[in-house]
C-alpha cells in the first residue's frame, strides 16, 4: 500500500543508478575473491574450487615476512599514534579556546590535506639525509612516518568523543572530592575508551593501507604487504595474489565492522 502512494522521496531512475553503483563497487571485489579459490592459474577462467593458492601464499616465505612486518608496523604506529592523539585531544578540547589552537589543528590535520606522494618524497629526502648522517637504516623511519600519518585519524574519533562528554561530569567528580588525577582515572578515561579504541582501529587500518609513504621511506628489505603487492602487480600475477588480497580484505572488513560496533554503542 505504501508503495502505491505518491512518495516525495522517490525519483525515477535513481534506484537503478544506485544499484548499478553498488554493483560496480562490489563486482570487481567479488570476482577477485572468487578467483582466489580457482583451481587453475587463470584469473578469468573458472577451473573448479581449490584452496591451493591460499596454501601457496602461506608457504611463500616472502609473503609471510611482509605480512608480519605490516601487522607489526600497523600495531606499533597505531598504538603510539593513539596515545599521542589522546593527549592532544585532551589538550585541545579541555578548557575553552586558546591562542595557537588553529596552528595545532592545522598541524594535526596536515597529513590529511597534503597528497601522499608529496609527503612520500618529502620523507624520502629527509630520511636520505638522516641516513647519510647517522647510518641508521632500521624500521624507525617507517614507524615514525606511519605514526605521523595515523595521528589525525586516531585524533578524530577521540576528539569527537571528548566533545560529546559532559564537562559537568568532571566538575561533579571534583565536587565529590576527586583530585584532578582521580577524576581523569575514574571518570574521563573510562568514558573515553570507545573513542580511544575507535581511534586505534582507524590508525591500524590506515597504516595497513598506506603504500605510497612506505614505498618512499622503506630501506632495502623493509617491504610491507602493500609495497610487496605493488611490486608484484608489474608481473604476470597468479591467483596467489588474489588469495593474499582476500585475506587482507577480510582483515580490513573485520576491523571496520568492529569499528562500527564500537562507535555505535557509544550512547551508553
Amino acid at each position: 500500500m505504501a508503495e502505491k502512494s505518491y512518495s516525495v522521496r522517490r525519483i525515477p531512475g535513481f534506484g537503478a543508478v544506485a544499484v548499478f553503483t553498488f554493483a560496480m563497487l562490489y563486482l570487481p571485489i567479488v570476482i577477485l575473491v572468487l578467483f582466489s579459490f580457482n583451481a587453475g592459474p587463470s584469473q578469468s577462467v573458472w577451473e573448479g574450487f581449490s584452496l591451493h593458492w591460499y596454501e601457496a601464499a602461506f608457504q611463500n616465505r616472502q609473503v609471510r615476512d611482509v605480512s608480519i612486518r605490516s601487522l607489526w608496523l600497523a600495531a606499533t604506529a597505531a598504538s603510539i599514534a593513539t596515545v599521542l592523539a589522546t593527549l592532544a585531544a585532551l589538550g585541545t578540547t579541555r578548557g575553552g579556546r586558546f591562542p595557537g589552537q588553529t596552528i595545532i589543528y592545522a598541524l594535526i590535520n596536515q597529513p590529511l590535506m597534503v597528497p601522499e606522494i608529496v609527503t612520500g618524497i618529502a620523507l624520502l629526502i629527509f630520511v636520505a639525509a638522516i641516513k647519510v648522517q647517522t647510518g641508521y637504516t632500521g624500521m624507525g623511519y617507517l614507524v615514525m612516518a606511519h605514526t605521523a600519518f595515523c595521528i589525525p585519524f586516531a585524533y578524530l574519533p577521540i576528539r569527537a568523543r571528548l566533545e560529546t562528554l559532559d564537562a559537568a561530569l568532571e566538575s561533579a567528580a571534583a565536587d565529590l572530592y576527586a583530585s584532578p588525577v582521580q577524576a581523569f582515572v575514574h571518570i574521563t578515561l573510562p568514558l573515553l575508551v570507545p573513542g580511544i579504541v575507535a581511534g586505534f582501529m582507524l590508525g591500524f587500518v590506515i597504516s595497513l593501507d598506506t603504500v605510497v609513504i612506505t614505498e618512499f621511506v622503506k630501506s632495502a628489505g623493509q617491504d610491507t604487504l602493500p609495497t610487496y603487492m605493488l611490486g608484484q602487480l608489474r608481473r604476470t600475477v597468479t591467483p596467489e595474489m588474489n588469495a593474499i588480497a582476500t585475506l587482507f580484505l577480510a582483515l580490513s572488513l573485520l576491523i571496520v565492522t568492529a569499528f562500527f560496533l564500537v562507535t555505535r554503542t557509544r550512547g551508553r
Partner: protein
Amino acid sequence: MRGPLIRGNGWKWLLCAPALTVLLLAASGPLLIVLVYSFLSPGNMGGVVWEFSTEGWFRVFFRRDIFEPDLVTLNHAHLTVFWRSIWLSFQTTLICALLGFPTAWFIATRPPNTRTVWLFLITIPFWTNLLIRTFAIQEVIRNNGTINTVLLRLGVIDSPIQMMFTDFAVLLGMAYVFLPLMVLPLYAAMDKMDFRLVEAGYDLYASRLMVLWHVILPQVKPGFIAGSILVFIPAIGAYVTPRVLGGGRTMMLGNLIALQFGQGRNWPLGAALAMLMLIVVVGALIVYLRALGRMEGERRG
C-alpha cells in the same frame, strides 16, 4: 579538570607537544625541506648540490636544448602530464557526482534500519586497501581479464580490447576508488535535509524535475562541494592508480614527481613539481573554503 593544575594554557601545549613533535618531524618539517630542495642544484646520482638555483622551477614548464642551453622551449611532455592530471581529475569528479548523487539519495531515502546497512556497504570500500581495489579493477579490464574473456567467449569481439594502460583505465580506476568520498558527504547533506520542503514544493505544483532543481539541489549543494573537493584532491595527487592501470605512457603528476627521484634523478625538479602539486591542492581547498563561506553568508543574509 578546571582546577588550576598549571596556570594558563601551558598544559594544553604540553599535552599536544608529543603529537606535534612527531608531526613536525615526519610531516610538516620534511615539507619545508622539499621547498628548500626545489631551489638547489641537482646532484649527479640523485640528491642535491647546495647551490642556489631556480633551474628546478624553470624546468617544470620549460626545457633547454641540449646543445644550445639558451634555446628555450615549452616542456610539452610536462604540460601534457599537467593537463592529463587536471582533466582526468575533473572527469573523475564529474563521474563520481553523477553516480554518487542518485546513490546517496537512494541511501538517504531508505527506512532508518536498512539505511545503516547501505551506508555500511558504501563505507567498507572506503576503508579497504586502495591497492587491492585497484588490483580488482585491473583484474576486470586486463587483456585476459573478466570483461575481455566474457566478450571473447560470447563472440562479440575477436581480439581483446586494450583497456589497460589507457586514460580510460586510469579514469575508471580513480572513479571506482574515490566514489565513496563523494557519496558520504552527499548523504550527510541529504540526511540533514528537510523533506517537508520537498513536500511543500510538490504542494506548490512543482514537477519532480523542478523540485529536484529548485528545492533539493540547493539544499545538498554543500555536500556536492565537499564531495567534489574530497574526490578532486586525492585524484590530483593520485600515484598508485595511474601507476598500476596507466603505466608509463599515461602518467599523472604524482608519477612524474616519483620519476624525478628514480631513474630521472633530478631532485630539485621533483621537489618543485611536488610544491606545484601542493599549490594546486591548497588552491582547491581555498576555493572550497571560500565557497563554504559564501554559502554561509547567503544563509545568514
